[in-house]
């Protein structure tokens, strides 16, 4: 009975020690299982980003590369690497240079040659040439 009230009294306080035990274990075990300590993962992320950035502009601040466990033996590296919304265009280098750092929605929405990132954008832009067949 007291436990019932304890739960409520604890609600407002910091998270329970059991909850942090669970989170800490989940974090440490995923690294244990693939034998890749967090420090090395960070190194790997930086290298991956460096390679991708050689070819395309990456919105570095929105990159999310993380380990994820689906089932016991299905650990995977999930990488979400959005391209920078402004794209360097060779024949309009001046304009592109101005846009390189522009990440605000208003700045990029006006650009028709922007490679659309989100599904809504893809659907909205008719002149968009993507390698994925548009869903009809």
């Amino acid at each position, binding site marked *: 009975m007291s*436990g*019932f009230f304890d*739960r409520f009294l604890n609600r407002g306080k910091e998270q329970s*020690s*059991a*909850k942090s*035990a669970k989170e800490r274990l989940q974090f440490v*075990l995923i690294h244990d*299982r693939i034998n890749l300590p967090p420090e090395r993962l960070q190194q790997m992320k930086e290298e991956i980003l460096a390679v991708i950035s050689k070819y395309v502009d990456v919105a570095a601040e929105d990159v999310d590369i993380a380990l994820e*466990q689906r089932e016991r033996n299905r650990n995977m590296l999930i990488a979400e690497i959005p391209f920078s919304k402004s794209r360097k265009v060779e024949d309009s280098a001046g304009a592109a240079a101005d846009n390189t750092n522009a990440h605000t929605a208003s700045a990029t929405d006006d650009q028709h040659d922007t490679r659309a990132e989100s599904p809504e954008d893809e659907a909205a832009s008719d002149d968009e040439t993507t390698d994925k067949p548009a869903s009809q």
Partner: protein
Amino acid sequence: MGAKVITVTSGKGGVGKTTTAANLGVALARLGKKVTLVDADIGLRNLDVVMGLENRIVYDLVDVVEGRCKLRQAMIKHKQFDDLYLIPAAQTRDKSAVSPSDMIELADKLRDEFDFILFDSPAGIERGFRNAVAAADEVLIVTNPEVSAVRDADRIIGLLEAENKGPGQLILNRVKMDMIRRGDMLSAEDVTDILAIRLIGIVPEDETVIPASNSGVPVTLNENSRAGVAFRNIARRLTGETVPFMQLDESSGGFFNRLAQWFAGGQNNRNS
């Protein structure tokens, strides 16, 4: 029909492997099964004292493997159950005195005569562990709801899978419902979420366990022990019976208690 060979292991020491092996052996014998317990913890012999059989040892596992005695001579019959035997570990040798193939050979010699052969594994992940799981058809991983024990259990599961012995089934030992309710202990659901293996038993922390090993009478034989009930339930599950997980709540178990448990998530085990 041949025996089922089951190894009790854990990675971390002190989580209750030997207590579990002793109790499952006795509980299976109580169900009328023919059982041999093998103490594979060479150099740190303990299953004999927990079983109350320490005074009867003449030969041990290493004597069998090295041919100094016949297998039968090293098998100590339990005081109360005629079909329960213990093969004790050697106390003055180390893990390298036996090999995994010795253990497979030993198990094969016993398979025809018994229903269950239980190996009690040493702690750790080295030779002793490999010896103990070599012959296993099934592995039981004992853990406690603590970060260190759960992490070691995960490592063991990984090693078992690498040897095609996995993933094994989990026994969560020393569970304290009141602490789970307060949010101060991982629940069975938390642990199975983390380890992603099947749960075969939840054993409550119980003050009858230490007096039982003090006197060399496994707690399974104490009708009033909650841990004893939990071990008997695991034994029944090992025989293929479906047994619901027991209510771990120590108090009256009224509506509010169940509600409290529901909030704590402790009894919502999806594997139960």
